[in-house]
């Protein structure tokens, strides 16, 4: 560590005692509600319909009086003026500096509007992430990302620059060229989805480059999928690259709200200085304040002004951790990242199934390739669940034993039987951004 170098990006917020963090969150929550009420026609309508005025929020408990918003509302409001965002906007359209949109995984994409201040705020929230994961100005950071309309790693790029890291945009390069550029420049860090981290390693090996030995990567930030918090997937990535892998969770409509620190404590810190996270029981909506019990996340971005995000029912299923992290940050942690999505956890053959459970099993069998695909269909009245896998080179002769182990583990972890088919290594789809491995075709007739 350099002289006078802080352990934290911002010790003022990151070590603030919990009771003071709550006071700060209340103060900022009132401020953002007041702002939205007076500047966003959508929020004004929403709050007036609920009979709520900003002054009604006096105590922390009053926050729950404020109506929640849902993804569908983001979409519906886009039909209103001003084009193309609709009247959730809290600033005139000419103050919008940055357009992004969601990937549309769950429906029509949401157009996201950010003012220049909001974009600074995106970079700022990512600085908390990168600094906590050990990024310093001596790092040479590669961004193997398409730099398109999705926010994805744009904010990592700007935060990396802000931190003083040498930042290399790997935009239009293909996967092989990206690997060669990382090698050529002796890059020390990069960010990608877990799927692409594994895909890059696989391609490098085909090029006779061992990422763990021939490259200089020391740390990798993953986002966009749950793999960074699934221990078996994380181990695969760390083994492949000989580097530490740190998770981060964020969303276009919300911001970069959580991060794993270098202690890798089995959970992610919620940035409680910039966000307010509430957890509610999925069925009853009752608040869950303590550790251990999972529920869905309701989140507020406390400082985002262009298109405010206030009490957004994200459907992400999380649970508070009771552990105290050795890093010294007072921000609370969520255990194991996002466990699933309230609308993803589905019943198959009468059994509740979270797609992440399948990933955990597939990735714990080292003879299996990195890719897989799950497809749920209905044959008459019966659900059918098919799993496509690949077997690593040189392990084809052990197929029978591998499949038996896979079936056993799946049965133990998910209580379900699968129709498993083996496919040639490299034949299943590879993804650069968000992988779509779980397909529930029952919902589409």
């Amino acid at each position: 560590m350099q002289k006078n170098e802080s352990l934290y990006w911002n010790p003022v917020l990151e070590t603030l005692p919990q009771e003071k963090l709550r006071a700060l969150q209340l103060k900022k929550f009132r401020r953002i509600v007041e702002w939205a009420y007076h500047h966003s026609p959508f929020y004004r309508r929403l709050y007036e319909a609920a009979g709520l005025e900003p002054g009604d929020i006096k105590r922390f408990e009053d926050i729950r009086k404020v109506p929640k918003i849902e993804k569908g509302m983001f979409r519906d409001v886009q039909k209103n003026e001003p084009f193309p965002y609709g009247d959730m906007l809290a600033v005139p359209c000419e103050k919008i500096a940055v357009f992004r949109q969601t990937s549309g995984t769950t429906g029509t994409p949401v157009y996201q509007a950010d003012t220049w201040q909001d974009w600074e705020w995106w970079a700022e929230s990512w600085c908390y992430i990168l600094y906590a994961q050990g990024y310093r100005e001596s790092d040479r950071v590669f961004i193997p990302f398409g730099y398109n309309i999705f926010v994805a790693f744009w904010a990592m790029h700007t935060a990396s620059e802000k931190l003083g890291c040498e930042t290399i945009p790997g935009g239009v390069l293909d996967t092989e060229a990206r690997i060669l550029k990382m090698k050529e420049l002796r890059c020390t860090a990069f960010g990608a989805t877990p799927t692409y981290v594994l895909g890059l390693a696989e391609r490098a090996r085909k090029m006779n480059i061992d990422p763990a030995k021939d490259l200089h990567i020391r740390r990798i930030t993953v986002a966009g999928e749950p793999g960074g918090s699934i221990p078996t997937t994380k181990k695969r990535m760390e083994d492949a690259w000989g580097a530490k892998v740190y998770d981060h969770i964020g969303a276009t409509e919300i911001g970069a709200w959580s991060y794993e620190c270098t202690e890798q404590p089995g959970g992610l810190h919620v940035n409680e200085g910039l966000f307010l996270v509430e957890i509610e029981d999925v069925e009853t909506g009752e608040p869950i304040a303590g550790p251990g019990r999972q529920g869905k996340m309701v989140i507020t971005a406390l400082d985002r002004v262009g298109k405010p995000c206030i009490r957004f029912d994200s459907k992400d299923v999380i649970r508070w951790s009771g552990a105290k992290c050795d890093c010294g940050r007072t921000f609370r942690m969520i255990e194991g990242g996002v466990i699933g999505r309230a609308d993803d956890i589905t019943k198959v053959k009468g059994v509740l199934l979270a797609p992440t459970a399948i990933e955990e099993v597939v990735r714990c069998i080292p003879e299996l390739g990195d890719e897989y695909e799950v497809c749920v269909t209905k044959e008459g009245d019966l659900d059918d669940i098919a799993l496509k896998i690949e077997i690593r080179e040189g392990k084809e002769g052990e197929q029978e034993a591998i499949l038996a182990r896979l079936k056993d583990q799946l049965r133990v972890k998910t209580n379900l039987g699968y129709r498993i088919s083996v496919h040639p290594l490299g034949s299943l789809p590879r993804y650069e951004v968000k992988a779509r491995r779980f397909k529930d075709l029952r919902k589409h007739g």
Partner: protein
Amino acid sequence: MKGDMDNLAIQVKELDRLIQAMRKLVDELHEKAGGIQAVERNLDRISANLKMLEINVSDVRDLL
């Protein structure tokens, strides 16, 4: 622990005092920019950065 918090409070107050002085200066510059885009647009960017200083420091001032 209390001593640490007291020191932090003193530091935050001093930082906030300087941040507010910067804010005043930026506002004054805005008033005097007279429509010069090269001044106003750069001030917008400075203002956004100032906001980050306020989020990181000034917002906490009264809580310590």
